[in-house]
């Protein structure tokens, strides 16, 4: 998995909790092209800890001179967003992974209906210029609780088809009515909290939208949990996974090679066989089939409770 060494060239707050970061090549070389919806892994060295978080690219894909991301500060998380807000300085060189797209537009759609909850608007910011250039029909519905959270409004291109819904002003999004009015061939894309995504999916499916026309993205940041012990049978080593550490991070810290891609439980690359389970696995991914959960685990996000988990690494 190659990554780019990029320099942080801009850091500006867009709203009380959301800050935009811009990265450019240190020698002004052209950056690899990407498709709207793609994200990059940002590596953060915080003393002893190494964080890796995925952030959607928000810049116009046709801007080959820089990559921009928007980070919402999460006070209760594992520290990645706090690092970005508090510890980064203009001029710092950081390790940025190549763009990967797990939330791509379906280019066969007749119309793209984009629904964003708060900071979930980020992937749409890169997709809208692309849609406009293709001459594709689209509509963005941007829902926030309070007006000051509308961090993305100034970033949208002039003439963008946007509808704003501010909950505190009594202008909530009427999902059912919106979905019922869409022409044949519309695809729905939702990037928001788990609750809002679930509501949108249920409403769409209840109205008769087929699964393939409904897309959602929600990065599962590996949530902290209890520490646990894992025996890596292929390496013949037993590791302790810390409360704030994911199983994948523990494997990497121990030098045990494990393939990975999204680090958010969505892509399947880190899928690992479970050889023995003296306890129970907490599956937190979106990848494994129910039948696979007895014998496989996604180390990037899932955890274990009990005496000992044995895996094939």
């Amino acid at each position: 998995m190659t990554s780019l060494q990029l320099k942080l060239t801009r850091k500006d707050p867009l709203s009380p909790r959301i800050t935009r970061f811009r990265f450019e090549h240190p020698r002004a070389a052209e950056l690899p092209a990407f498709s709207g919806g793609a994200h990059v892994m940002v590596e953060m060295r915080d003393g002893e800890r190494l964080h890796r978080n995925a952030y959607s690219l928000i810049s116009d894909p046709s801007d080959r001179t820089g990559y921009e991301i928007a980070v919402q500060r999460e006070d209760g998380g594992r520290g990645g967003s706090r690092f970005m807000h508090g510890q980064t300085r203009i001029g710092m060189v950081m390790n940025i992974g190549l763009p990967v797209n797990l939330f791509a537009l379906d280019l066969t759609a007749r119309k793209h209906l984009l629904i964003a909850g708060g900071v979930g608007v980020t992937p749409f910011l890169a997709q809208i210029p692309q849609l406009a250039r293709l001459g594709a029909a689209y509509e963005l519905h941007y829902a926030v609780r309070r007006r000051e959270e509308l961090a993305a409004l100034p970033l949208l291109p002039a003439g963008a088809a946007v509808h704003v819904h501010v909950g505190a002003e009594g202008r909530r999004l009427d999902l059912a009515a919106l979905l019922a009015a869409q022409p044949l061939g519309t695809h729905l894309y939702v990037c928001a909290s788990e609750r809002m995504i679930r509501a949108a999916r249920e409403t769409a499916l209840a109205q008769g939208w087929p699964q393939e026309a409904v897309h959602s993205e929600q990065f599962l940041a590996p949530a902290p949990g209890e520490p646990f012990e894992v025996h890596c049978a292929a390496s013949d080593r037993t590791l302790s996974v810390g409360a704030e550490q994911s199983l994948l991070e523990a494997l990497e810290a121990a030098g045990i090679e494990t393939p990975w891609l999204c680090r958010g439980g969505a892509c399947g690359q880190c899928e690992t066989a479970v050889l023995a389970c003296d306890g129970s696995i907490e599956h937190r991914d979106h990848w494994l089939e129910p039948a696979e959960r007895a014998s496989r685990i996604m180390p990037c996000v899932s955890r274990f409770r009990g005496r000992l988990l044995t895996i094939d690494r």
Partner: protein
Amino acid sequence: MTMTFNSETFRGDYSYRNSPAAIRRFPFPFDRDSYMYSVNMEPHRGGPAGSVFERRFDVDEHYIAEMEDRAITLSRDPGRCQSLPHMTLAGWDLLELIMRSKAEDYPELFELHRDGDRWHWTNRPLGIEDSFTFLDDATLPCGPMEYITRQTQGDFALLDQRDGNLWMDAGMVTSQADWSLDFDIGMNFFEWHAPVPRAAEMGIFQRALKFLLNIGQDNPARRLNWTMTVNPRLDTSPETYPEWGPEKRMLTRGNVGERQFLRVELQSFWRLPRSNALAFPIRCYLCSLQDLATVPKWGRRLHRVIRDLPEDLAAYKGFAVNRRLIVDYLAGFDDGLPTSPGIFPD
């Protein structure tokens, strides 16, 4: 590096010939004395100097002749090159990938100058010099995929990635092993592979699809596939089957060495950045049995592979009717000695 290009035909008088150098670099596909399907992928990241694996898009002595044959096939049947409307962006991605790769890997043959989105492309072997605006369809004489694949050896399929699957939504297909782009365009990974015997039961396609969906911009992959063809004919499409079908029945003990060809596909898989599609080049190499047998290891091994291949695979790979002739001919090159592992000559 000076390259000479053959003047030869892939139809009619079939004047196609491989030089001794071309024979030695031929991608013989069997690494052991038997064959069964596998997801035999490896990173497409260079290879031994002079081999077909070394460059991203291999150019060889057959380049000009292959492009002329493609032009003939397209003039007779334009339906061999099709692109569903949403795939034009992927076509531009492919054009960039091929132009940049070939200009870097073969600077004496190809040149690319970019000034923002104003590009200037020089193709010396084909005598082409064109200026155009990248991403502006109106500045090219035809769609970007067609434009660049008329100048690149091998067939190309562009696969749209959506709904957890890959969809064959565009292609330039003039050297295929008996499948129709016009019929298959719009099919997903499992549908277009439907005619392949046995592989579905082996779960091969599920594993292959999962691998392909996760290919990223920095890690293209490649694999080899093979069939057999009578005469060095590139256009072995179902559409023209009435033309090349009868040729299959013209083999004799006297001509099988010269007229039976092993046809190897070097397939590669590339993530395209702006469209998020997957490019799937299928590069075809042809070598006659008698030329292959000049490499002792290959003569021994090919005999054993073809002799022991299950009947349904022989039928699917198109040579069941000539199998007896082929095996008898190759037996003359198999003295029973052991063969070294791997595909390269000793």
